């Protein structure tokens, strides 16, 4: 027990995103309402965004903009800056996520029009007829 706790705390960002990930996955798989499935999907994607963002973070580092020390010399130590690459990647991933959300909502609207409902069991019932 004494060792487990620090183990969890030391990487708390991983655990947090993992929990979010499973909440999202649960929503996508188990929920009957299609809208809730979409919400699950967003949580799922967000968990991954957070995971990426958190791995770029460094203790005591600054934003990755070239930083000058007092004698006007550029500070070129990598440890002084947060890693910008994961953040940039996630900008793209956010765009992708928004795109997916848009398509999902559009299709959901169509499903509502065709089947008259967005509850999965009712749709299946409707398709059987």
């Amino acid at each position: 027990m004494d060792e487990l706790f620090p183990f969890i705390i030391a990487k708390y960002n991983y655990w947090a995103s993992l929990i979010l990930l499973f909440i999202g996955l649960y929503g996508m798989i188990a929920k009957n309402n299609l809208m809730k499935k979409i919400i699950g999907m967003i949580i799922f994607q967000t968990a991954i965004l957070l995971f990426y963002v958190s791995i770029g973070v460094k203790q005591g580092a600054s934003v990755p903009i070239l930083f000058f020390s007092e004698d006007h010399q550029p500070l070129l130590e990598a440890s002084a800056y947060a890693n910008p690459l994961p953040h940039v990647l996630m900008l793209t991933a956010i765009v992708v996520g928004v795109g997916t959300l848009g398509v999902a909502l559009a299709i959901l609207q169509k499903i509502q029009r065709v089947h008259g409902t967005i509850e999965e069991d009712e749709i299946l019932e409707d398709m059987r007829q």
Partner: protein
Amino acid sequence: MIDQAPVFIVIIPLLAALLLVFATPLGPRFAYGMLVTALAATLAAALATLNLVVAANQAVHYRMGDWLPPHGIELVIDHLSGVVLVLVAGCALLTAIYSLRTAEQDNPDRLNQYYSLFALLVTGLLGMVASGDLFNLYVLLEISALSSYGLLARGGGQAYYATFKYLIVGTIGACFYLLGVGYIYIMTGSLNMADLAVILSRPELQESVSVKIGFTLIILGIWIKMALFPLHAWLPNAYSKAGTTTACLVAPLMTKVSVYIMLRMMFTVFSADYIFNQIAWSELVIYLASAAAVVGMLAALAQRDLRKMLTYIIVAEIGYMTGGAWLANAAGFTGTTYHILADGLMTLCLFMAVGAIIYRTGETTKAAMVGIFQKMPITAVVLVIGAASIIGVPPTCGFFSKWYLIQGAAQAGAWVFVAALLIASLVAAVIFFRLLEVAFFGDLDAAPAAPEDGHGQGHGPAVARAEAPLSMLIPMMISAAGLIVLGIYTREVVSYFISWSIPAGF
């Protein structure tokens, strides 16, 4: 100019996708012409690139904006991706030509938007094949996935729900992949494939649990995308409810490109040594693949709807390719890569033939097949050639990929996989035999036996000749001829393109 060819492969269809939206006022004919021209240009660029690769006998690296890797994004085209690019561009071009009638029939109101998505999907697929960067691959994967959702949903009616399920599952797959890439990035600090291969070969990373988790997530994500049994449930519904053109474009290419990505991950990013010694799942995966082949074919046998039957055959074919890749020997790898080409062509051929039959008869079940040999003789012959290739009748290319796969399985001692391949072939023979019997002789159960008309030609009542339109026939005939040509030139294809990519250590 010619050394810029790699970038044109991606840029031409992307520009076409943009311009097609703006070209709406110019009418459907213009859109069709533009799409076909753009894809023909893409094919030319792909061929030029392949020529570059073969001439230089090494991979062609194209650095976007001249930024050097590992920071810049690069396109890497070697022998293997070169051929797959040609396959994708070629299949897309054939489908575009084929789409003249069906696309308009399926999309009377938004043809340009439809074609735009078409071009975007092709862009995504080509980009995935050419990309040399893991994150870039993710973006292109999503581009192709998003555009395929749009295309599949155009099938209307039940297609919406099927597409929605595909969207959910596809997003899970893509996110798994992205998460896995995250793990790899944490451990290596790089996203460039060639760079990663060097970094990952360090002993401490070979042992690392995080890398293993990363690999597992990536492979799981790809398996979902390529519908490996038992993760295949989304595929049959999504593909069989789609419009004819969409099915012809999506069905042959998307899963095949996913298989290609799996090979890239396994053998380029990671290494054969890592996969088979550190991960050491191959036995399990081969069982999965064998199950996929048998279950897929049996499920296909149980289908009444023609296109749904074909989609289950895809599930089985994915089993073939996955099994071959995990056999850990040269014959298995050759079989898998060759089968990517062969299966892409034969799935295209069958989907186009079945699409034409559905287009003419309006039926989607076995009833559509009655008397096809009299009604649409050329389509029927195309169907026969495609079926022969799926069954594995020489000299079609399906026979030779099976040859390599069985040879590899025998060398690896994977007798379960050998048995699965043979059972699947026999079941495939039964599937197509049932259809062709009806197509040839008519259906005895449905209609009374055709009266014997004595001496002469016809069997039974004269059936009006109603061949598919020329715009459908030409691509169909090209793809059917391609199956035979590819089969006859197996040796050339293998020795010029595939043998270069066989991983070291086999």
